[in-house]
């Protein structure tokens, strides 16, 4: 009798421990949080709110995918928020109805988006070259590019917003039927590349130990560089969504996203030391952060309160991850 209860208890604790160590922990926490808060926050579980959550989640997820790739190599990209601003401004300058270079041209939207991707990729390439060829630390390189690119975006527009964007463009960000499949395709592709392709394996190897990877014939410089290009391109795609949602090209767009994007990847379980991270984890992290954001908004908490909570959540997630790693090491 007592023996069976203890074994039952053991089984439940074991189940709990397995969940605790599992990669679905964050998803489980999302569900838990949602069910716990749904009765209190009015409209939290409504269909319209789901749409809202998704709409704001998608650009962040897009951005976080790029960051995940960079973090896997053991680097960091602080310049993504400025890249959003710059690509937003560049895209708007091309297609805006007021004095846009291609105002009224039917090809304005595709050309603008292509240009945004090129600019985003170019910022990433610049970071990548400075980090791999000039051997500068990623942190300070992307910090200076952040300052420079943001300054450049402000200089281009003299800190004015550019409005009158074509409807075809703003639709991409605002219509879930377009933005959701777009993000899903990018995410699925990134997931497959990371888990199944040579590029992905090499990325992890570089993150684990770039000396060993180099000795083993991995093109370390090329791989590292391309991670930053991917991050820049993802920032450009996020900018397409965000600019569409804002309906203006703004040189300060995405300014407050840095904590969100790093926080979401870290909550998901991607390591800042490199070699560890998944698109799926990042999706869970983004979801968790956005649920908190959204629910606190619904509870009428002020913007600054939400920021405090988010900071605390990220700290807590990092703490859990540290505990979890110690636990996994001990149990293996």
């Amino acid at each position, binding site marked *: 009798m007592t023996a069976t209860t203890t074994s039952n208890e053991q089984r439940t604790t074991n189940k709990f421990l397995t969940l605790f160590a599992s990669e679905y922990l964050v998803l489980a926490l999302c569900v838990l949080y949602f069910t716990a808060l749904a009765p209190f926050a009015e409209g939290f579980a409504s269909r319209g709110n789901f749409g809202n959550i998704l709409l704001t989640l998608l650009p962040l997820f897009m951005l976080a995918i790029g960051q995940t790739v960079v973090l896997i190599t053991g680097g960091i990209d602080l310049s993504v928020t400025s890249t959003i601003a710059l690509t937003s401004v560049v895209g708007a300058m091309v297609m805006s109805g007021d004095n846009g270079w291609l105002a009224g041209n039917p090809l304005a939207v595709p050309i603008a988006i292509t240009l945004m991707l090129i600019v985003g990729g170019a910022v990433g390439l610049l970071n990548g070259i400075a980090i791999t060829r000039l051997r500068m630390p990623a942190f300070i390189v992307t910090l200076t590019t952040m300052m420079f690119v943001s300054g450049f975006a402000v200089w281009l527009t003299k800190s004015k917003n550019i409005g009158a964007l074509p409807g075809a463009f703003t639709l991409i960000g605002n219509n879930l039927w377009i933005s959701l499949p777009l993000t899903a395709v990018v995410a699925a592709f990134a997931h497959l590349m990371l888990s199944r392709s040579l590029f992905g394996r*090499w990325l992890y190897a570089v993150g684990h*130990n770039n000396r060993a990877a180099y000795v083993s014939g991995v093109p370390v410089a090329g791989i590292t560089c391309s991670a930053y290009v991917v991050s820049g391109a993802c920032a450009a795609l996020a900018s397409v969504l965000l600019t569409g949602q804002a309906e203006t090209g703004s040189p300060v767009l995405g300014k407050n996203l840095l904590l969100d994007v790093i926080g979401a990847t870290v909550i998901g379980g991607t390591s800042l030391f490199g070699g560890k991270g998944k698109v799926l984890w990042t999706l869970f992290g983004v979801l968790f952060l956005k649920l908190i954001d959204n629910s606190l908004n619904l509870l009428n908490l002020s913007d600054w309160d939400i920021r405090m909570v988010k900071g605390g959540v990220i700290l807590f997630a990092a703490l859990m991850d540290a505990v979890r790693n110690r636990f996994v090491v001990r149990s293996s």
Partner: protein
Amino acid sequence: METTNHEQRTTNDALLSFRAIEKSFFGVRVLKSVSLRVRRGSVLGLVGENGAGKSTLMNILGGNLRPDAGELLLNEARFEPRHPTDAARAGIAFVHQELNLFSNLTIAENIFLTSFPRALPPFIARRQLRDRAAELLNEVGLNLSPDTLVERLPAGERQLVEIAKALSLAPKLIILDEPTTSLSARETEHLFALMQRLRERGVAMIYISHILGDVLRLCDDIVVLRDGAMVGNGVRAEFTSERMISLMVGRELSQLYPKRRERGDSVPLSPQRGEGWGEGWERHETQAANESAGLNHPAPVTPPHEPFLGSSRRDEAHASQPEKDQSLVTSAATVQGFEARNFVSGNSLPVERRGGPEALLELRHVSQPHIVRDISFALHRGEVLGISGLMGAGRSELARIIFGLDAHAGGEILLNGKALPRSGPRARIQHGLAFLTEDRRHEGLCLEASIADNLALVALRRHARTPLKFLSTGTWREAIRTMRAAVKLSPNARDEQAVKTLSGGNQQKVVIGKWLVAEPRVFILDEPTRGIDVGAKFEIYQLIHDLADRGAGVLVISSEMEELIGICDRILVMAQGEIRDELRSVEFDRERILRAALLDGARTVTSARTP
């Protein structure tokens, strides 16, 4: 000299005793009930192969590790160091082989980092600091300003700073772990004189070294460890180098190293050899063996493994019958004498492939300022070529140059007769070159990654399908499974398990495995068995032989001469970045190798050069 001291040994003159110390890592017992003592004012020599347990024992003494069982007694009181500072406080100072200095601080600051003299706390009394440091530097014979930044010092001088640091604690016991590896001959003499003075002052020392002559010269008592157990313990008079070696090794050399499988094809020759030697390995072997044995008629057939057995037999002979052995050596040496000179003088002819031995890897006059000079040799199909020499002789640097990790200013490196690009390992790997680096943790493995990921890394490219290079999981899983079996990786280890959880031997097998997956034609192994237990060593030797038997060329760099003698077909000896000697298996002789490695041959080389 000290015999009177030895007679006076009583039980209570022990400064420090280890009692039945036990320690296991990952279920492997690395210390098996070790008990030993250090007498006051005496030097204890601690010898044993790498992995015999010396460093574990010293780490326990230093408070870095805790024993699973057993106890330490210091001055007859129980001593349980839990932190390095506990050992320091108890008057125990360490001079480690790997240097623990801070390159961004001055010599004086390094010495007194945790015990700065203070006149007006918290400020450092700089004059006092300088004076005391100068005193200590004087004592260790380092004629430098105490304000010199350590980053400006070469390794030998840094080692002396380490010793000065140990002395600053006014220790009762000093542990010296291979302190002479980076010292010049003069610095070494200075150190030995210093040790003598310290002993006279009543300081006890534990001296760990592979140079057995030094141990015999310096130590009062000697302890021999093998596989974590104490196999010899006594006063110096009870030991000779030969006895220490046989205790350390514990079995005959022939049991330590696997026999080479019989091979059909002829075994190669060095391209530098003159015409007379170009007719085939076996014949030459037989000739040389017969000549050295004083026989005149040619022996009919010699099995290919014979030379190796011969060499090990000669080692035994060397140990028991020095005179007879000497004659063997000299006769062999005279036969080969002119060639060695010829070789060293760098008079390498272009290779003429005579249809026989096929040179897989060939170096022609490879030079890099301050690193290596005029290195020429060839590695042939099916050959195991060893590079011997002291640490810092430029062996690893040469390997790195061959693999393209470091640049070389002059000369050519040919793989399969084609010149390799100047740098970068990638093209070399594609051409069939593999390189097991000396530094397994930093350059060999992704420690956090799984066994499967590590094994797959080098050959991954082959399993990628265009256009997006997606991997075909089936084929690379299959390759991993084959390789796990081939390198005899512990069956308990799961593919997904992180490599860092494996023992040293299994980690090394993973590194070897990852290269074998790529089916290399030339495999360079730099210290392949460092820090690995005897069983795993044997398996690694077998892998090396299998690889050679399948037609690859293997270049093995090792600090353990016995190992090279045991597994190689030919040995090159390096010193000061040059090749000083070349020995074929019949000529294998420790003395000759050591002489070539140790003697300052720069002058002889120069004189040989000038016509």
